[in-house]
């Protein structure tokens, strides 16, 4: 038993921290009316690819770095802390879908391109944000050797800037996974006015789009990928809680009211102490989930689901408290407080609400007990 990070982990985290601190600049987003197109995430992506992060968990056999999920969260913690805008989440999700649903040949063809900067997205949710819709989702029709996809997907992260998109579609009563080219005929992508302007989130309308079926598609693919996406969001959340806590603490030591720093008032102190508790708890559950998924230890799914539920609930609360501590200035567009508030809120809906994940947790425990 050893619940501490290794020196390698700390080194990875520290070098990632140095990178994002130098490269991430949120200031263009702090002008009223700015949207994700001002976030400059293309430039950052090129550098991320140079660092190898685009293929960080891709197995070495497929040209990736083959690192585990604890390594991954060292990096996601830093991109999450700084809200670094880049197509990393979309790419990681698409890569996991291919890793799980692709045949050997498909994996050998697609995964090595990640190290060269291939950008991916994963389209699972329907227009209403449901991930388990079996009725009016995108449908796949056989067409020669390939398939044609038609229908609408939404809440697809990083779709507009992706090179290829992995799409789940109804095929003979099953949900299978398919790969399409972003620029294929019949693909129509709308960048949504997603409130978290550090993230690109899109709607996808497909009209007879040529698609390749991932040959190992099965019912296990989505839950497997979702656990990993939970982990990524949870790692962002945990780092975000720490960040807004630190910012609020610094501010509370500087801002004076009634002749004292506002941090001397218990009403402020107690709020911040409680957030310090959530920050520590969030960090612990995220590390545990990353370890459990890396070890394939049987508790991985439960841990990842708990991590996403806990961290997103507490991230929402922490970013709200953070604005409260700053007072009216914290409510302006020109401060970055709202970027965190929005990231937190959007992360708590993107893959379902914290309450929906708690429902999953209870079901897993009921199953275990049965």
């Amino acid at each position, binding site marked *: 038993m050893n*619940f501490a990070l290794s020196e390698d982990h700390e080194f990875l985290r520290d070098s990632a921290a140095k990178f994002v601190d130098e490269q991430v600049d949120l200031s263009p987003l702090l002008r009223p009316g700015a949207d994700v197109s001002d976030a400059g995430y293309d430039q950052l992506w090129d550098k991320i690819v140079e660092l190898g992060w685009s293929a960080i968990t891709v197995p070495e056999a497929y040209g990736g770095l083959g690192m585990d999920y604890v390594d991954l969260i060292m990096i996601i913690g830093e991109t999450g802390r700084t809200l670094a805008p880049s197509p990393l989440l979309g790419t990681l999700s698409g890569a996991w879908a291919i890793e799980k649903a692709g045949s050997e040949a498909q994996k050998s063809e697609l995964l090595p391109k990640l190290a060269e900067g291939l950008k991916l997205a994963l389209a699972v949710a329907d227009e209403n944000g449901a991930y388990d819709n079996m009725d009016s989702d995108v449908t796949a029709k056989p067409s020669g050797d390939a398939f044609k996809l038609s229908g609408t997907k939404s809440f697809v992260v990083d779709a507009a800037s992706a090179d290829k998109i992995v799409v789940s579609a109804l095929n003979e009563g099953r949900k299978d996974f398919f790969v399409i080219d972003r620029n294929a005929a019949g693909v129509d992508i709308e960048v949504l006015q997603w409130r978290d302007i550090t993230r690109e989130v899109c709607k996808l309308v497909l009209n007879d789009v040529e698609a390749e079926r991932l040959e190992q598609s099965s019912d296990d693919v989505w839950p497997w990928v979702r656990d990993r996406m939970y982990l990524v969001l949870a790692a962002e959340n945990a780092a975000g809680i720490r960040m807004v806590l630190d910012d609020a603490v610094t501010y509370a030591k500087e801002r004076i009211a009634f002749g004292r720093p506002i*941090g001397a008032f218990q009403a402020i102190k107690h709020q911040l*102490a409680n957030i310090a*508790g959530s920050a520590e*708890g969030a960090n*612990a559950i995220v*590390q545990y989930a990353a370890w459990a998924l890396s070890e394939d230890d049987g508790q991985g799914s439960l841990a990842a689901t708990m991590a996403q539920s806990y961290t997103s609930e507490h991230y929402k609360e922490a970013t709200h408290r953070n604005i409260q501590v700053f007072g009216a200035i914290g409510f302006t567009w020109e401060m970055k407080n709202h970027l965190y508030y929005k990231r937190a809120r959007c992360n708590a809906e993107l893959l379902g609400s914290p309450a929906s994940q*708690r*429902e999953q947790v*209870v079901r897993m425990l009921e199953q275990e007990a049965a």
Partner: protein
Amino acid sequence: MDFNLPGEDDPRRVKVRAWFEKNPNPTYAQLAEQGWTASNWPEPWGVSADAETQFIIDEEIVRAGLELPYTINAIALNQCGQSLLTHGAEEQRQKFLPGALACEDIWCMLFSEPSGGSDLGGLRTTAKRDGDHYIVNGHKIWTSVADEASVGVLVARTDASKPKHMGLSVFLIDMHSPGVTVNPIIDMTGNKNEYNEVFLDNVKIPADALLGREGDGWRIVMEQLQTERVGMTKPGVVWGMGPTARDLMDGLIKTGRISDPLLRDDAAKVYIEGEILRLLTFRNMTNRINGTPAGFEGSAGKMMSSPHGQRMADIAKRSQGASGMIRDPDVLPLPNKKWGMFSNWDYAYWFSPANTLGVGTQEVLLNVVAERVLGLPRDSDPTAKVPFSELSGGLAKAAE
């Protein structure tokens, strides 16, 4: 990083288990001979167990069907005994520790007074040196197990000319000394006299009952409270002891109550919190094993676990509805473990308001975390720098 807990075949575990097989139903004195009632203490008292070995030994004690020694003699083994290792004289160790470790001499903690518990530094009980002994006068209250205790860890004022935190000293007193009167106070559970008030009326105690030096009291007491709080981070329902949210969830599933939609989500929340507290406990252990300076643990852990326990006990009760309002120890099924007085949900629930009072109130802990962990400005205390004897009102008079 490795979250695997020591397995069934861990050689340390095998050794401990073999002993229990040879010695079924041991007394605590026998456990103490093995050094297992405070295994983390150095020899000859303990076995210098690192945090992981201590964890194994504790698990095996529970497995053997025994209540953990440090819940039976908490003040000695969890809070105050360690002070004798750092601040005590060898004669004091020889005199007090064997009985404590065997759980034969129960200790109590004479800190709080009627005039205030949070502001402990303002206490009024005095100990005046008189030749080769001290004369103690004062009134302590909320003293857990004082009615069973033979040893009292007393904080008293030895020098009122100093500011309030500076003139304090710690003594180990014989609770059966003439002048010590213990009156049980029935707490709101009505089950048991959880605590007592203790009158100290010209109690004569030998000078060598002083722990450390005169004036060291505040420092020693703070160390003791910190040790106590670290133990309380555990995910048990009351102060880290008793059933956990795992046991709660188990019970809710077994009884089918989990399908109540008005309970289900809250139960899940508490379950997740419990898992996180478990992880924080293990992180504390790792830090101790690795010698990493304690950071967040202690006050912060208690700050999180106390309200968690209250929420947990509340859900156990809610699962019963109105029937739960009848005195009934069998609210939800529990595994057959010995947790001492918190071995049933009914008692744990009615006891739970104390979670956020004892060992530092929630408000005081939030202050401590904000000030010590986050570095926010200290609360002001206009009485902190003034010689105690110059403070107005009854305080000064009492100290004279």
